[in-house]
């Protein structure tokens, strides 16, 4: 029911990024000898340079490119640390913009496929790119090497250009648009849209535009560190409701972010989080190991978040604690969860919250970036989770619960 109320509360949920704070001793003690905790993927920041300067990007751009020696050692490190064959492995090319270094991509691919063949196990490849460098030559390479590709876009036209700027300052949508016809034919291609307070209202139109151009796997993610206001959050809520209806009418399209949301809202109980430091690890351009690529970016290659180096192996203690921190029982909770467990408020942790399944509390990198503690989510997680859950429930419970949307592109 839409009450029609237009109360404006002058509140901004402002991101307040902090450096690392004091850590707690965690109760979870992962057994690093277990195959469960052996890595299966490395995310290679083969360059930390980019031809764009998206203002929300968590990667601090710098002219550092991974040397061939470090790249090769990273491949060997993955295979050496992985579970024994036939367990399959994967390598992700990340950056910066990985297509600035196509030769390194070819080399890593050749080393990894040779090692995998010698061990009799599969290895697969993926890449996240800003889609501005999808020249015919690069598209041929990606197709030939069968690299699953995720295009990082924000939307159409002005929605894309709002934050995704070229180094010279202009928007980058025109650069992307000329490649999209080729991009849609890439192997296992998907699109990920980053949603900011300024572009939330544009999300349905942007996804519709991409779907019309043939993209079949689309996801989106809010900039959790942004300054979300009541107005921008309301735009996001309406956009999600609109997208649930849009998705329901197009079974061939997969707006993956929407899938399972309604079911997820009752998913309480302790669990492992995203797997950072456990199955995947990130390698920066100099070979330092981090729990994930976001740690590399948020902490600007800071030593406090490192968990080893490809030349020297894991810092076992550091890795163990990040793995432990990635279990929901270690998470302190935002203090505003939806609990129905009879547990005293001061003892409530994320595992007992009904929004756990849709909340980002398990992103240790964002947590540490915003609160100084990888186990302490920021309250903005709670707000975004409720918006997502409420939009999903109102969409799936029937039209009587849907708020009529008056969304129009800005």
């Amino acid at each position: 029911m839409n009450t029609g109320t237009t109360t404006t509360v002058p509140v901004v949920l402002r991101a307040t990024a902090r450096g690392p704070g004091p850590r707690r001793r965690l109760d979870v003690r992962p057994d690093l000898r277990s195959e469960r905790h052996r890595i299966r993927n490395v995310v290679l920041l083969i360059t930390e340079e980019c031809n764009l300067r998206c203002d929300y990007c968590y990667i601090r751009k710098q002219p550092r490119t991974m040397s061939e020696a470090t790249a090769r050692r990273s491949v060997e490190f993955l295979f050496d640390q992985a579970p024994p064959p036939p367990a399959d492995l994967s390598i992700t090319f990340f950056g910066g913009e990985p297509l600035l270094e196509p030769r390194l991509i070819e080399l890593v691919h050749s080393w990894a496929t040779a090692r995998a063949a010698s061990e009799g196990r599969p290895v697969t490849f993926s890449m996240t790119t800003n889609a501005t460098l999808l020249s015919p030559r690069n598209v041929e390479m990606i197709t030939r090497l069968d690299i699953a590709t995720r295009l990082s876009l924000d939307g159409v036209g002005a929605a894309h250009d709002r934050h995704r700027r070229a180094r010279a300052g202009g928007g980058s949508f025109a650069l992307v648009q000329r490649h999209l016809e080729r991009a849609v034919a890439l192997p296992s291609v998907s699109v990920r849209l980053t949603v900011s307070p300024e572009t939330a209202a544009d999300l349905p139109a942007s996804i519709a535009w991409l779907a019309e151009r043939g993209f079949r796997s689309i996801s989106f993610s809010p900039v959790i560190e942004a300054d979300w206001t009541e107005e921008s959050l309301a735009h996001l809520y309406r956009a999600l409701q609109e997208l649930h209806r849009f998705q329901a009418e197009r079974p061939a399209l997969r707006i993956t972010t929407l899938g399972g949301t309604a079911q997820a809202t009752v998913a309480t109980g302790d669990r492992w989080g995203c797997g950072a430091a456990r199955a995947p690890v990130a390698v920066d351009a100099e070979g330092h190991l981090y729990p994930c690529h976001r740690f590399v970016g948020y902490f600007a290659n800071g030593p406090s978040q490192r968990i080893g180096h490809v030349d020297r192996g894991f810092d076992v203690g550091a890795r163990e604690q990040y793995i432990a921190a990635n279990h929901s029982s270690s998470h302190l909770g935002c203090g505003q969860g939806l609990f129905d467990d009879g547990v005293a408020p001061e003892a409530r942790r994320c595992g007992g919250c009904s929004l756990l399944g849709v909340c980002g509390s398990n992103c240790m990198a964002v947590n540490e970036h915003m609160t100084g503690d990888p186990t302490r989510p920021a309250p903005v997680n709670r707000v975004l989770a409720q918006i997502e859950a409420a939009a999903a429930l109102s969409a799936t419970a029937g039209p009587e619960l849907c708020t009529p949307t008056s969304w129009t592109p800005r």
Partner: protein
Amino acid sequence: MHANFVDAPVTDLARTPAPAEVGEPARAAALLSALAQRFGESFELTPARLRSATAGRAPSADTCITCDAPQDTCASCDASDLTCNKQHDIVCIRCDEGDLTCPRDGACNLIGDIPCGRGDT
């Protein structure tokens, strides 16, 4: 020992000040209240409403090897990435399953702005 972790007795934790600003939860609560006023019942969530709205959605018999939760339950990651989201996008671009969800071996647990590259298609 990792330089940033404090190997302190658990009982000391209560004296460890939370790094988050005291005002943040209050701001979040104010925003949620304002949104609830604007959108009414459809925006309000309680554990009971959540259970009611999702009743009858039987979870799959398969469980996630990573967390032992029912597969349909841990498919929550599709709601992710975070942004992972939350990363609102903790989802593999090939199998469309999130970090907690891979029914094969639990190794598909990558934050969603990268594809896991597994050949699930």
